[in-house]
């Protein structure tokens, strides 16, 4: 729980430094998120894309690749899910097709960045950032143009009921979406993939020592493309769930930056797939409460962005400090 206690302390300090009472803020945060069934439902819904975009950063990160493209991959997954979802399909197949094709769209966008890195030498950070902007304009075009409903609303047609995700009613006004189980499953699959398969072993080897891995015969180019593709598919799935579970269509103001939140989630989880679950719950708590915080205490929503940036940087600093300590101990 180290990083989370740390994250809470940093959040408290930031609020205090900006002239707000951390205790008041925590009271509001707890009340509007964990404190009520409706709040809890919202919190779990918001943690779903965060788990997936967090994984989309972690999987390639273990091979030393930075995927900053979660945002664009999420958008593409979402828009494809909205298009397929609005078509008529056989009942059982519909949701499967929506998920599969949405993941393909995100995956191809990720693999494109991987290809540019492996074959054309374009650094994946710059590649994914540029692809984010291209994806953003592309989906804007689709929503305003070919996929527009043409009724003055900037969104696609609503999806069929067969393309909606199932949900379990656990209390009177609290249900859990099947999407959450899919996200949790992905976290455990990624954990197994990285630690229990040769593919995962090679991936981690690439991240730990790229030179030795190359000499050991790991096909670096193929791994780069596949890993970025897998990351894109995970972020694409986040977009699919946003469409299928929450919005039921795709519109211009689709996501509040879950792709970028994923970077903070990955750092909070310190690169461990299972740990994205608590990390995503932490950030989704803030994302659930940010509207109430702004309304009741006047804390601007952008405070969450500042907190994310500060956490990413501080966790990286801590990582370096620990590493240096280890090296010193090893040296005697």
């Amino acid at each position, binding site marked *: 729980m180290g990083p989370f206690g740390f994250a809470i302390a940093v959040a408290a300090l930031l609020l205090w430094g*900006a002239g707000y009472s951390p205790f008041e803020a925590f009271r509001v945060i707890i009340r509007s998120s964990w404190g009520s069934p409706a709040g809890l439902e919202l919190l779990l819904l918001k943690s779903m894309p965060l788990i997936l975009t967090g994984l989309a950063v972690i999987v390639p990160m273990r091979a030393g690749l*930075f995927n*900053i493209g979660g945002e664009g991959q999420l958008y593409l997954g979402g828009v494809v899910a909205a298009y397929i979802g609005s078509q008529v399909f056989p009942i059982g197949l519909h949701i499967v097709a929506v998920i599969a094709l949405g993941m393909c769209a995100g995956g191809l966008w990720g693999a494109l960045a991987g290809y*540019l890195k492996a074959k*054309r*030498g*374009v650094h994946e*950070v*710059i*590649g994914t*950032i*540029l*692809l984010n*902007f*291209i994806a953003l*304009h*592309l989906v*804007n*075009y689709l929503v*305003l*143009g070919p996929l527009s409903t043409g009724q003055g609303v900037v969104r696609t047609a609503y999806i069929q009921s067969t393309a909606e995700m199932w949900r379990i009613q656990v209390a009177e006004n609290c249900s859990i979406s099947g999407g959450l189980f899919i996200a949790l499953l992905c976290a455990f699959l990624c954990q197994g993939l990285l630690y229990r398969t040769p593919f995962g072993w090679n991936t981690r080897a690439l991240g730990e020592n790229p030179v030795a891995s190359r000499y050991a015969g790991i096909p670096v180019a193929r791994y780069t493309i596949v890993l970025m593709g897998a990351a894109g598919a995970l972020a694409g799935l986040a977009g699919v769930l946003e469409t299928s579970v929450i919005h039921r269509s795709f519109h211009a103001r689709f996501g509040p930056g879950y792709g*970028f939140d994923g*970077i*903070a989630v990955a750092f909070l989880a310190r690169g461990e797939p299972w740990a994205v679950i608590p990390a995503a719950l932490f950030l989704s708590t803030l994302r659930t409460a940010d509207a109430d915080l702004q309304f009741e205490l006047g804390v*601007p*929503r*952008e*405070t*969450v*962005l*500042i*907190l*994310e*940036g*500060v956490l*990413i*940087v501080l966790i*990286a*600093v801590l990582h*370096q*400090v620990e590493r*240096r300590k280890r090296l010193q101990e090893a040296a005697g």
Partner: protein
Amino acid sequence: MISVLLHAAAVKAAPILWASLGGLYSERSGVVNIGLEGMMLAGAFFAVLGSGSFDSPWAGIFCAAIGGGLFGLLHAWLCLRWKVEQIISGIGINLIAMGVTGFLLLRIFNAYGNSPSVPKLPSISGDFLIDIPILHRLVFPLGWLHLVLIAAVVLIVCFFRKTVWGLRLRATGENPHAVRSAGIRPERIQYLAVTFSGILAGIGGAQLAIGDISAFHIGMTNGRGFIALAALICGRWTPGGVVIACLGFGFVEAMGEHLQGKIFSLPAEFYLALPFVLALLALAATRWSARPPAALGKTGV
């Protein structure tokens, strides 16, 4: 018509060029600067804040330089003192800059999304050339900050080519150990270079906020910092190359606005995405032949 287009291209290129020149300082000293976008954004906000509070756009530029410079200093401190991976530090800086500008916009101006209008930088209308319309349309209206930019380009070329400090900076990016054995601290040069990089990117933000228009919008840099980074790579980390690459990106942006709903009936989004597509293609085409500074990105050791 063509002179109008070229003029628009140069105007669009100016903010990108400021940031790209900033990136040049940082990366030639060996520090990758993904944070240019955030530094530009901070510059844009502080330019508006300064221009509004002191009722003078020149004070705005000063504040933009300080705001961008502080973020540059933060980047340098994280990369050099704490050996944080440079890309991670840059990502953090972009997020913090996004957050801080939005936060302050609400707290200081009490506004969501857009700041109120503030005094804008003056420009020269150049009436004495009105008799030669082609030339007049090509050059004017010319902002005073554009003139400063042209002077800055000349000075920066001289700095890198002719001065001992330029040589030291380039040497630091190639081989910091050699610089150290010559009795100069490479860290000191990198601190100065990265801070200066933030200052230039900040002025780029000012160009955008109080040069081209006269207000701040949330996220108004809109990827220009990343385009600047791409221009730096396409320009092969040289001042001349950077100028040409930025003019190229400015031309694409200007052409997009010019062609919108005119000759071709292509959608607006196509033109908005065009600079990014082009940046990606240019990087894919040139990256192997371009040689980055040898020690780029290696302060984390």
